[in-house]
Structure formats: C-alpha cells, structure tokens
C-alpha cells in the first residue's frame, strides 16, 4: 500500500526563487558531496524556461520578437515584497532588498496581472483603436 503513493522523490527540496516575470525557478537541496560522500553539500537547480516566441515588449504584440534574454542571479534573488517582523513587541513592515525601484523587464506574462493593448479595428469602413485583452482570464474585475 505504501509503495503506491505518489511520494515526492525529494522531500527536502526548498524553493528559493520562483520568478514569474522571467520564468526562473531555483530550488536547492542537500546531497552527498561527490568528493566526500560522508559530507552533504547544497545542490541548486536552476530551471529557466525561455519563451522563444515572446515579443520585446510583452504588452505590445506588434513589437519584434525578442532575441536576447538576460538572467541575473542578483535580480532573481531580490526580495522586494515587504514582510512583517516583530521588533520590541510591535509589528513593522520591512523590505529585505535594496534597489527595488528598478523596473523588471518581463519575458512572459504574470498570471495575476492583466495585459492589454490597443489595435486598429476596421469596421464598416472606419478604423478605430480598440483595447483588447492579451490575457483575458486575468482581466476580470472581480
């Protein structure tokens, strides 16, 4: 009965980076070292999915195809979301990284954000600029 269960093969693998914007995940786990099997070392797995059909500007489908993808560990490991910590009995919101003001260039869509663009729409001889959703599922108001 136990053998039939879908066990996670690596149960101690921790997720360090899960960057939705550039589509990179970094996980780490402890493995026996190759030089000395008695010792355990940290092994990091970096998984990058490169969207080859992405545009230079993901909000503009008419921009050219992106051919250069740059991944920097410092940018990926940045923790810009404020977290709460307790100091002297009071809660404070703190941000753990510096240079968080630099905007990130995204290579792919963030599922929780709505991306839309305008395009020329020819209707009854008239061309109008219409807004259309690039990611319809994310663009609902509720």
């Amino acid at each position, binding site marked *: 009965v*136990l053998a039939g269960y879908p066990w996670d093969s690596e149960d101690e693998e921790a*997720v360090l980076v*899960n960057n939705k914007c550039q589509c990179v995940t970094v996980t780490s786990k402890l493995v026996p070292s190759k030089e000395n099997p008695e010792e*355990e070392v940290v*092994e990091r797995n970096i998984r990058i999915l490169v969207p080859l*059909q992405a545009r230079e500007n993901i909000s503009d489908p008419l921009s050219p195809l992106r051919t250069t993808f740059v991944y920097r560990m*410092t940018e990926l490991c940045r923790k810009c979301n404020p977290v709460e910590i307790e100091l002297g009995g009071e809660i404070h919101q703190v941000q753990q990284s510096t240079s968080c003001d630099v905007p990130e260039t995204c290579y792919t869509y963030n599922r929780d954000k709505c991306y839309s663009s305008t395009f020329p729409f020819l209707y009854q001889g008239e061309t109008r600029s219409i807004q259309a959703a690039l990611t319809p599922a994310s663009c*609902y108001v509720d």
Partner: protein
Amino acid sequence: MTLVVSILLLALLPAQSASSRYLPKSASNPVFGPWQVYGLLNGSVTITCFYPPTSVNRHDRKYWCRESGSSCRTVVSTSGYVAAGYQGRASITDYPESKHFQITISGLTEADAGSYQCGIGINGRGLSHKVSLDVSEGPHIPEGAELFYVELHSTVSMTCSFGKEAANERKFLCKLDKSGCRNIIDTYGNVDEDYTGRILLSNEDTPGSFSIMITQMGWQDSGFYLCGYGAYGESGETKELDVHVYERTNVPQGKPTIIGIKGSSATFECHYAPLRSSSLKYWCKWREKGCSRIIDSSGFVSPLYEGRVTMVNNPENKTFTVILNQLKDSDKGYYWCMTEEEKEQQSSTELKIIEGEPGLQGQKDVEAQVGSPVDLTCSYPCKYYSYQKYWCKWSSTNCTPVPASDQRQPGPDVTCDRDNRTIILSFDSVTKADQGWYWCGVTHNGLLGETMAVYLAVAEGQSDGHNLEIEKVDAPSPAETGGNPQGRAFSDAGVQSAAGSESSDQSQGSSTLVLSLSLTGAVLLVLVTAFAIFKYRQLKRSDLVSVGSYRTNISMSDFESVKGYGASNNACVKENEETQMGGDEFITTEVTPESAAETKKAKRSSKEDADLAYSTYLLTSGTSTQGDPKEHSTAPEVPPPTWQGQI
C-alpha cells in the same frame, strides 16, 4: 510553430543549513485532487479538483486531459470541447465559489483506465494534478482518500466515523511517510512534537466517531494521513485522508505567536464566521488531553483566572478579543479560540512570556476603609501618549468602564511630559460594593492594548484615629490638607509612590525632607565615583582591537562574483501560478554531458565565458530542434491564442 527550450543547470556550493522557512517544492503546485480514482465497468466516476480561488483561476479554462507520451490530450474542458469517444459521457463543471471543479465520466470501459490530469489554463503547463483512473469489474472497489484543501495558517477539521466496535478502542491519527505511519495524536495522550499545541482529538456524540482539529496549517502538513482505531498495522480499521495546503496571497493572517511581558497583559484576537455570531464562544488553554476552558461568552470564568481575563465581543469585525493580564511564566502555552459551531473558525495562538517592564505601572493591591476616599493610580509611558486610556470594573461577564481622570492637561502640546502621566480612579467614599478588581487599560484605533489589574479590598473599620496607619500610600492623608477630604477629588500626583510617602510624613516637618535629600545625594555621589573608577579601569584593561586583526580581504572583484553566486539562500516570496507565452507544446532538451561539462567549466572561469558558452549552445540547439511537433498538438480543441482572435 511554437518552441520552448528548457535547460537544467547545476551549481554546487558548500553546505548550508536548509531553513524550514522556505517553501517545499510540493507547495508550488496549488491544483489538488485525488491521486487515485476507482471505477466500475459501465459505472461512473466523479473527480473533484481544487484550486486557489484567485480571480484568474476562477475565470480560466478548466480541463481534463489524458496523458499520452509527453503531452496531454484534452478529453473535456470548460471551453466547451469534448473529445471524440467521450461525447455524452464526460462532463466538467466548475464551482468557482467553492474553489473546485468536478469531472464526471460515465459508461466506463477498460480502455478508460490510465493516467489523466485535471488542470487550469493550458494543457501541459504544470498547473494540473495527476490522477490515475482504475477501472475494475468489482463488485467492490476501494474507497478513495477523503480530500482536504486547506488554506495556509488556517484550521482543518476532519471527522472519522467507524462503527460501534471502535467506541472503546484507542483512536489515532498518523501521517504516512516512506517508512510507515508516524503517530501524530491518539486517545492515550501522545502528541507528536511538530503538532504540539495545535491539534485536538475529540470524540463525537455517535460512538465510534471522532474528529481531529489542526490549526496553523503549514506547508509541511500536506500529505497523506490515516485516522483509525486500534493500532496501525496490527488491528482495527483506518481511513485515508489526503491533505493539501494552499496559499492565497493578499489575505492577512492572524499572528501565530504572541509575546507577553511578565506582569503585563496579552491581547488575543479571535475571528469567527459571520453566520454563527450568536453561538457560544470560548477560550481555552491547550493540554495534552484536551483544552481547558478559561472564559466563555456565557459569563463563565475559570476560578484560577478570576480578575485576570476578559472577553470583548465585536460583531461588526466578527472578532472577539480576549485579554489576559498579570502574566506569569506558567501562562506560556497554546490558547485556542473556539466556537460551538463552525469548527473551521477555531484558531490557536502560542503565548510566550519574556522578562521586561510592563508599560502600565501602579499599585496592584489597595486596601481601604469603608467611607474613606481612595485613589487608584495607573501611570503610563510616553508611547501611550496618544492612546485612549480607561479604568473599568471587572466582572465575570465583562469589564464595565468607570469614569476616571487623565492627568495630562488637554492642549495643543505635542511633547510627552515626564510628569503627569497618570490616570486616576477616585472614590470619594468607598463602600463594600466597590470591592473587586479594577483594570486600567489603553485602546488605540479600536484595538485593545495593554491592561493592568488592581484589587481593591474594602475593610470594615473605625474612622479617624486608625486612618493614618491603615490607609496605603496613594490615599492622601486628611491631616495634610486639614480641609474637607471630599474637595480633594483630583490630586496632582506625579510619580505616585514617592509623593505618597512624603505626604504622609508631612507632619514630621522639613527636617526629614532635608535628611532624605542629603542621603540620596550621598548615595548618588558614591555611585558616580564607583562608576568612574570602574570605567577608568575598564579603559586601562581593554585591548584596542585593530581592524587589521580581522580577516578583511575585500577587493572590488569579489563584489562581482559574490553577488553572482554567493547570494545566500534568500527565498523570493511565492507568487501564484506561472504563465507561459505562446502555444501548447514544450520541447525539453537535456543538456548533453560534454556540453554540460563545458558550461560548468566556463562558469568557473568567468562570467563572460559562461555567457559565450551559453549563447553558443543556444545557437547549436536552436538548429537541432526545428522539427515540427504537429502530431502532438492539441490544436483541434482550441486555437492557440493568436493576436487576431481575441475580440
């Protein structure tokens, strides 16, 4: 034609301890469902799949697809597609408010058995859950596990029912792992240390049934559990439970730990469901054998906690607040907020006690004579300067506010004066009915803050002659003013104890004053001299530590490489599901051994070489993966999202 290339890189680093704060890999798949479903030939089967109720998940396409090779062919989806061969016997329904969707397949045949996926979005993108469908002749099929989809930090309540034979047996809950079933809790009082304080096992009314409640659900709590009676592997029966924890971003969570200062007070906030605001609520302390009730909304207060605890109900915010003061070391532990109905609303908090100075100070025990005036003073620190302060009389049902004076002069000043920071509750003529507990407290923005409790004991007694000895320090002596005690309703007490003792000795005259002043001066002088000598000696003895004695081999180039690969294990905050651009298919190429060695070696030398090697690799692999994977595409079901098709 859409191509996506994925690359796996390995980097080896010296060992660091892995912190349990980081999300385990299992946390990154939020879609949850049964891993095994059993069906009878010609029968039907229903599969329930859960997902986090974010806006995008609720509106996105849900699908049920059959795995074939490395892709997954859609069987039925909420876009309206039903595969050939499943017409009329497969249906899918989404219940976005209940955060799940259901797939029903009827008319099962042996060919239907296999590996499927239920998911959200686009097939094969990873936002899915693998389900294995087993079709057998029967007549009996195994019961699948009961699914629990629980939000992070919330509470799960699981009920297991067996027959009467389980009534007097040992009941237990254990967690399945590779080596067996680890006992979590049982009716003999054994509790696993990871679950201490946050799990309760209680018997239900029907014999043989019991329920288990676990609060503060964390990522590590996901997994398979068995609840049963008897002993695992030896006797009795078990039922399977499959629990999965998901995270919903942007939802504020209750504090799992509260730190209280010894002698001060702690405030616990308990949330409850809107529907059952009239049910009985109670607050209890966790013990290995159950939860001992301390206070409840019917007015019951445990005798051990008399005068120490109060409960305030706030129906608009759907919370009730419990304040516990006069904290002692023995108060540390886990406290649960419970309601009679709505088991999912129970929550637990851990209380830790630390040494420190309470903010509100004052005399805790006051004795007075019947008929005499009494002042209860409570001094507050500057941090409560702008808070609302109050005095209230404690009773087992609530603490009723009593009008008191705040010594701070109301005015446009912004500074916090060292003196005059007291609130005084005065009695012109105290009676026996005034005996009891009085609380001094602060509130800020509607949130209840620190409190301090004072016990006023009123004794029968004679008046006049005995007043001077019996009255305690903060009752002003009548001899001092010589006037009507009633007129002295609001005295100006600065630092209260010193003022009190001085005023009672006023009759001795100024000689005592001079004596005490000179004594204090002498003591101060001695202290200052001692301190100066000590500091001088320390200066002489201490070594001037030179910066050079520490290893500081910092150079600019180190900054470059350290930033690149030496970044410590900082986890980025988990966000929701990932989105891929483009079409439906993935082409996965494994890094071939020699190029892997190449890239690894290149990395070790310099970053520029690594970039070069990587771009060369991309160029070579780009040419090799030009094959068109049309035979695998699931194109008939939905056209790949192209630019024109979105109106």
